């Protein structure tokens, strides 16, 4: 039987995993659904097709890289031109330049995508337009002497970002929107917590809750194939938030009488003095997580591991806020130990969730953080125990071993994914 030629028009459609296909075709052959020759033809056809897809994907990547580089060059040039002549440009002209840049970039992006179907190049222009909008806010703010440390400016930047991201299906703009939103919340939290030393743990706790809510929102996108790419920035950034904060809090230097964080007694809290906006963030993150979990459950797409992936960090956030801040330990050992147990639990939890839900990203993320945690612990502890030369040699051997071990674990896990048909 002669293999048919692949259909080039369907190259954009999702491709089956070759490992999965090979296993399935062998099963069909065993079940005598297809003959040995037909099985061979199917695999040959898909192999050829996969090769063409690989080439096309490669070209797509190059286009993406080239257009992004071009866009960044254009943006940097414009910025330099405007910056070097800024003082000589009248106020209203500066506003006009800012507006024209934002409109031109986004209109070009729209035209490229919907009139000429140059998706990769259009994505670059749309992203640049989104960045230019933020830049315009700060440039106009600078022109009129707005206080640029006011979080409201970041909020103004954030508001149209996510609607725009969904409208043009841009994960990059979604990621930008989430990060700008984080900035707005972070700035506001810093303002609310300024001068209130008894609230040291609030910042970390609140951001873990926000990270969990963002991750849960990311899971919500998995219900529809077309929305899945839009969920990835939420899952990535949300998971990273939780891990980064837990990792940062796992160092002993944070705690104790000379540390940055000082656990305080619950009775010293004045909950009525918590600013309204802070309650909005905490309750908003909590409700978002609950509603997302309920929707996933209703759709039947909330598996227990996913629920654990949402619930465990959420509980962790509250523990940080309540447990650590409520106790007044005599030494820094208790909060230090709690933070490390939480980090270890989160890393193991993420690996388990990643394996059970076949999310390679979660497994890789956890392994990377585990590696970083081990390396930094070694530097922290080993540096003081041995001399420089010995600690470097021992460290080198340990790290090579660690890298080998991690690679081995990763390979084992990923080969299981392949057998199970990971997406």
């Amino acid at each position, binding site marked *: 039987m002669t293999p048919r030629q692949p259909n080039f028009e369907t190259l954009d459609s999702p491709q089956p995993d070759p490992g999965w296909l090979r296993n399935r075709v062998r099963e069909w052959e065993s079940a005598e659904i297809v003959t040995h020759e037909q099985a061979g033809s199917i695999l040959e056809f898909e192999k050829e097709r996969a090769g063409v897809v690989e080439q096309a994907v490669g070209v797509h990547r190059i286009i993406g890289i080239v257009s992004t580089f071009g866009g960044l060059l254009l943006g940097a040039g414009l910025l330099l031109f405007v910056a070097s002549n*800024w*003082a000589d440009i009248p*106020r*209203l002209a500066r*506003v006009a330049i*800012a*507006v024209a840049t*934002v*409109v031109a970039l*986004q*209109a070009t992006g*729209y035209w490229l995508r*919907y009139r000429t179907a140059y998706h990769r190049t259009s994505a670059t222009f749309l992203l640049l337009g989104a960045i230019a*909008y933020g830049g*315009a*806010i*700060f440039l*106009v*703010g*600078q*022109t*009129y*002497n*707005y*206080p*640029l*440390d*006011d979080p409201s400016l970041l909020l*103004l930047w954030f*508001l*149209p970002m996510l*609607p*725009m991201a969904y*409208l*043009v299906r841009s994960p990059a703009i979604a990621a930008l929107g989430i990060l700008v939103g984080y900035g707005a919340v972070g700035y506001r939290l810093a*303002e*609310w917590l*300024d*001068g209130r030393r008894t609230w040291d743990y609030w910042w970390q706790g609140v951001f873990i809750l926000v990270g969990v809510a963002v991750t849960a929102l990311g899971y919500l996108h998995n219900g529809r194939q077309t929305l899945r790419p839009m969920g990835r920035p939420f899952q990535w950034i949300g998971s990273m938030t939780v891990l980064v904060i837990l990792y940062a809090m796992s160092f002993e230097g944070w705690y104790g009488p000379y540390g940055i964080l000082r656990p305080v007694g619950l009775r010293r809290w004045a909950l009525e*003095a918590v*600013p309204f906006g802070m309650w909005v963030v905490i309750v908003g993150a909590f409700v978002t997580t609950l509603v997302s979990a309920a929707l996933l459950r209703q759709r039947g797409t909330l598996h227990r591991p996913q629920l654990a992936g949402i619930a465990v960090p959420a509980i962790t956030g509250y523990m940080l806020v309540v447990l650590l801040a409520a106790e007044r330990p005599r030494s820094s050992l208790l909060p230090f130990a709690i933070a490390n147990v939480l980090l270890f639990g989160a890393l193991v939890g993420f690996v388990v969730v990643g394996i059970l839900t076949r999310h390679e990203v979660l497994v890789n993320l956890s392994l990377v953080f585990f590696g970083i945690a081990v390396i930094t612990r070694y530097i922290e502890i080993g540096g003081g125990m041995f001399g420089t030369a010995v600690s470097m040699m021992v460290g080198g051997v340990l790290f090579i071993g660690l890298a080998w071990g991690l690679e081995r674990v990763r390979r084992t896990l990923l080969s299981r994914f392949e057998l199970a048909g990971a997406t």
Partner: protein
Amino acid sequence: MTRLGRMLFVGLVAVQVLVIVGMAAGRESTLRQEATDVKLQTVPVDPRDLFRGDYVVLRYEISTFPTDGVRITTSDVSPGATVYVALMEGPGGHWTVSDAATAPSAGWDRYLRGTVTGVGQGRLDVEYGLEQYFVPEGEGLAVERAFDVDVVVAIDDAGRGVIRHLVVDGEVWDPYQ
């Protein structure tokens, strides 16, 4: 893209344009009301921040004031609260605090809206959104080294102030004019 999608796209770009133009228009309208100018005494410093370019951080005499003699007390407000500070012209043409309350009073001629940043023993620290003045790169030091720096502020009907220009050692200093 569907017609609704096109309309949404145009709408979202329009929102961005409105935000940028709105930010400028709000301040422009205040700057064009010459009758409401006040001159404030400052003590400048000059930090540098890569993200924000060069700017002068301004601190005013009215940034900290005692609560005796004004309506508001330290127990009435906490950091983050909005306050209104009435101004009266003092010696040298500098405007100083004459009263302060959580809402503007009908009898006040000119007042600034501010945010409480600190509450001390019988005094309040207030920021008015006038604490940064952006200057062309390298020119901030000229302000810092000056003997006397005043800021002329235009105030709108709601008490929002906009820096019109600086007066450095008695000379109007506006690097963008």
